[in-house]
């Protein structure tokens, strides 16, 4: 049977975080959505705007994450913010004890957006909040330079995201934390009543419960799902191009305390050095080669550091062993399939040496050499990576990532199914045609190799060899 080649883009938007593995999502599917109203700053107070609205997060065709607010009555999307990973945090404003107020706060700028929950029940609030952070900071694709699994990572901002949507953000942008807290902490009795009255007009009782059959507020959260947010008229759509980001942005994750932090790690530091961003300009192409896709991811290169993030964001199934009966395909230990006696002969071949050399660490403490190739594959660190890779493969979440390595459709399919055996066997399948194979092969090598190379200088060197 023929495998329909899915558009690359939808493979890329295959979500990596828990709960969404396995299905191929259309680009316009909202990752999170909930009813919420906007708020405004007036006379030093943050006040709710009396409009029924919806907050949703979605990923556009060009893989950028959008945080949007839509007026549920008019259908107008009044705010469409493009969010770069780690640039913002969505959190509850604890100073406001009476309402369920949340703040979208930016690290790279002082812009702030306040929202008040209009969901009937409060019990999902924390969950929704987490989902917002997760999806914004771990966009459903590899290669976009994020840190730390979910939530408030402390990386320095990538910069430049979320322009203003008029007066609201600019008015709030000058506020520091203490000013904010005084705005909420000092909330007066009249303000309190006003908030509650807002809520009551919406059909919410003081306790936040939705009254049945109220003014259309009984509609479900999915009512907006069928609308395609992209392409609709969005008066205040904001977009900052990756090029605007400060040159040192790739190094942000080096400076912070986030999980993947490595001050001197070449891969991270080079994330910004390449600065390839937006090479192909056109953001709407669905069919893209790995090279183009790679070039258009934030930062321009495959973020190898993201592998760690990906691995941590993958939720291990409860109590599952690496080769448990639950996973597809036969059980085996990947290290057994890569015994040293099979690897050493490969490493004796000059051509293969050249091909593999770029994948070695490039550190002054550990210069690249044929010797190091041999020592690497026998090192515990290498073997641990093998195990981790196998385990990650079996979760079925690694499809988009391995696709970037140019392993071929069948292998990607196996990865999506978490079938390690099928994945391996797919790698031995002959490529479609000789010509395509040659093209794909060289492109894959080039792409994979350039992913491994920390900087452009090396790339030139390798091209010469």
């Amino acid at each position: 049977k023929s495998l329909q080649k899915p558009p690359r883009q939808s493979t890329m938007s295959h979500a990596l975080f828990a709960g969404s593995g396995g299905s191929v999502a259309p680009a316009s599917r909202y990752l999170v959505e909930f009813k919420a109203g906007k708020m405004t700053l007036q006379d030093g107070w943050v006040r709710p705007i009396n409009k029924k609205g919806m907050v949703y997060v979605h990923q556009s065709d060009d893989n950028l994450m959008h945080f949007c607010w839509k007026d549920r009555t008019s259908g107008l999307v009044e705010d469409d913010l493009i969010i770069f990973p780690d640039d913002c945090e969505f959190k509850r404003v604890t100073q406001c004890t009476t309402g369920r107020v949340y703040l979208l706060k930016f690290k790279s700028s002082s812009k702030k957006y306040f929202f008040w929950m209009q969901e009937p029940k409060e019990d999902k609030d924390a969950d929704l909040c987490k989902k917002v952070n997760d999806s914004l900071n771990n966009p459903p694709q590899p290669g976009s330079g994020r840190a730390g699994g979910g939530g408030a990572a402390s990386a320095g901002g990538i910069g430049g995201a979320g322009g203003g949507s008029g007066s609201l953000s600019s008015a709030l942008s000058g506020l520091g934390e203490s000013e904010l807290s005084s705005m909420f902490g000092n909330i007066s009795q009249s303000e309190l009543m006003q908030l509650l009255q807002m809520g009551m007009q919406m059909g919410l009782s003081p306790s936040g419960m939705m009254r049945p059959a109220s003014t259309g507020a009984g509609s479900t959260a999915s009512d907006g799902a069928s609308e395609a947010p992209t392409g609709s008229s969005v008066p205040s759509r904001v977009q900052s191009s990756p090029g605007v980001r400060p040159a040192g942005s790739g190094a942000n994750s080096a400076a912070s305390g986030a999980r993947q932090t490595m001050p001197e790690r070449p891969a991270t530091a080079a994330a910004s050095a390449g600065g390839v961003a937006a090479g192909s300009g056109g953001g709407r192409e669905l069919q893209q080669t790995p090279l183009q896709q790679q070039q258009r991811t934030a930062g321009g290169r495959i973020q190898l550091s993201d592998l760690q993030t990906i691995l941590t964001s993958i939720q291990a199934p409860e109590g599952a062993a690496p080769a448990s009966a639950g996973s597809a395909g036969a059980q085996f230990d990947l290290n057994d399939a890569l015994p040293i006696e099979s690897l050493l002969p490969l490493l004796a071949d000059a051509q293969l040496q050249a091909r593999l050399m770029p994948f070695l660490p490039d550190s002054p403490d550990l210069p690249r050499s044929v010797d190091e190739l041999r020592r690497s594959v026998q090192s515990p660190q290498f073997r641990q990576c093998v195990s981790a890779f196998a385990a990650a493969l079996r979760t079925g979440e690694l499809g988009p990532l391995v696709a970037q390595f140019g392993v071929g459709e069948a292998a990607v399919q196996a990865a999506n199914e978490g079938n390690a055996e099928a994945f391996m066997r797919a790698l031995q399948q002959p490529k479609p045609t000789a010509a395509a194979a040659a093209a794909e092969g060289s492109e894959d090598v080039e792409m994979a190799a350039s992913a491994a190379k920390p900087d452009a200088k090396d790339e030139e060197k390798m091209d010469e060899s």
Partner: protein
Amino acid sequence: MSESDWCLIESDPGVFTELIRGFGCKGVEVEEIWSLEDSIELKPLHGLIFLFMCEKEQQPTDTDESIVLDSRLEEEIYFANQVVNNACATLAIVNLLLNVQHQDVELGDALQNLKSFSASFDSKTKGLALANSPLIRQVHNSFSRQTMLEFDNSLAGERDEASHFIAYVPINGRLYELDGLKRGPIDHGRLPDGLPTEEWVQHAIPVIRKRMQRYASSELRFTLLAVISDRKTALQKQLDTMTAALDEGGDESGGLTEAAAAEISRLTEAISHEEEKIARYKRENARRRHNYIPMVVELLKILGERGQLNGLVDAAIDKSRNRQAWKAEGDRSATKDAQAAKTAASAAGTGEKGADAKPSN
């Protein structure tokens, strides 16, 4: 300051040695020892760290041990509580180092600053100060592995375990146990009169042994780490002293005595051995920081192109099946043994619990 800001790092002497250097501390290194008695020969020994894995429920709670809560905490002892699990190794090391007063050891700016800055804080706040130190956290995180240990562990279906570090250090003639999960340091008493400070560990050995037994289970995995003066520095000093002495009062003919020559040769060799060790630590750390997954995938592709992959997968599947079979067999016979022992015990009427019989593997 949250858990997610600190990575898990490996408990490896090379990692810890480089970690300490990364903090700016000079003159120490960390070495693994395999028996408590090995520590006796290591001089000067600044402290011992006992590290073990335990199930999270088993983590130590305060008992009626003599926990120090008096003025010694302000005047003599530095003790910080563990507030972030992932930082436990660094915490133990810092707790140990900040209590060392020895001419060989130079704390360095970062640690000295932490010590003075947090000197008047209570233990919990000291722990917070450490957890909030960007430099310490950064250095710590620079040793995390590309592939998360947590991820490995959770998928391997291992029990919910945590690693636990306990430091032993002599301070002002008494032996203390520094366990970040306890309310304060534990006082194990005065070191025997007349015992040179350098011999402190002999007094510590029985104490540590008792502690090891307390946390013992049939699968106790533990590591003993010794914090000692940097070997290379000591050797270099010796060599320098020797060469200087020879230069001054040496043989007029310019020759060396055989003994002197032998000694110089020994020292030089020992120094280069130490240099090789440091280089090895650095290589290992470089490998730890590196993500080999792209290389793994490339190797798999190569093997696939060469038509070797299917065979290797077949062989691996076979191996796995065999292991399962052996394991099943082992479990069956273990159960049989246990049952046999039980029967025998009750037949013999000793009243011993049959469950005490260890299964044979």
